[in-house]
């Protein structure tokens, strides 16, 4: 499979930690949500201290969910609306 680009969005505390609201990742073919989280924790070590949630195409996803080319991914800490 060919390389693909994935857009990752950050909100709230994760946006503050990574210092930006969006990051483009290049991955080799299909990847799991978990492997994206691992990659981000390596790039931004402070993320490792957080309990993180991941969404794919605006739906909550688990670590073994598959991310496809062009998917919108978001990484965030526990929600606190209300």
């Amino acid at each position, binding site marked *: 499979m060919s390389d693909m680009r994935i857009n990752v969005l950050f909100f*709230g505390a994760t946006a503050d930690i990574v210092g930006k609201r969006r990051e483009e990742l290049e991955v080799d073919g299909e990847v799991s949500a978990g492997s994206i989280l691992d990659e981000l924790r390596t790039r931004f070590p402070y993320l490792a201290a957080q309990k993180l949630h991941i969404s794919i195409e605006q739906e909550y996803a688990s670590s073994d969910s598959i991310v496809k080319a062009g998917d919108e991914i978001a990484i965030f800490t526990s929600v*606190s*609306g209300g």
Partner: protein
Amino acid sequence: MDHCELTTEPINVGAVARRVVPPECGATVTLDGYARRFTTRDSKVIETEYLVYEAYEEMALKEMQKLAAKAKEDFAISNVGIVHRTGKIEIGETSVVISVAAPHRKDAFAACEWLIKELKRTVPIWKKEIYADGEAWSEGEAAE
């Protein structure tokens, strides 16, 4: 007739309640959540100057709509209104309104209480508390 909305403008609580009223209903129960000045953390009272709410807007709206649909499956209610404000919110201003209209008020109470609990657990919105000497992202209900 359900109504889910994110807005940066002040919320008119009564107007949200009114949006969800169908003719067979006799009662609307409304939860009005607002920025409070004092919170207790680790048994210390902290004074908040204002709040900032940030949302993952497209996903937050989807999750709000899911909650409204699920509430109508699980409770004998007619309509649901959920409005959450984002951006800067002064002390005393409304951050969230949930209104539930039902033929019988018991169902409206139960559904409204369920909806606010689930909103705080699942809808991707984050609250930052700004103090005189700093700021912090709230860790949500689980941490309270």
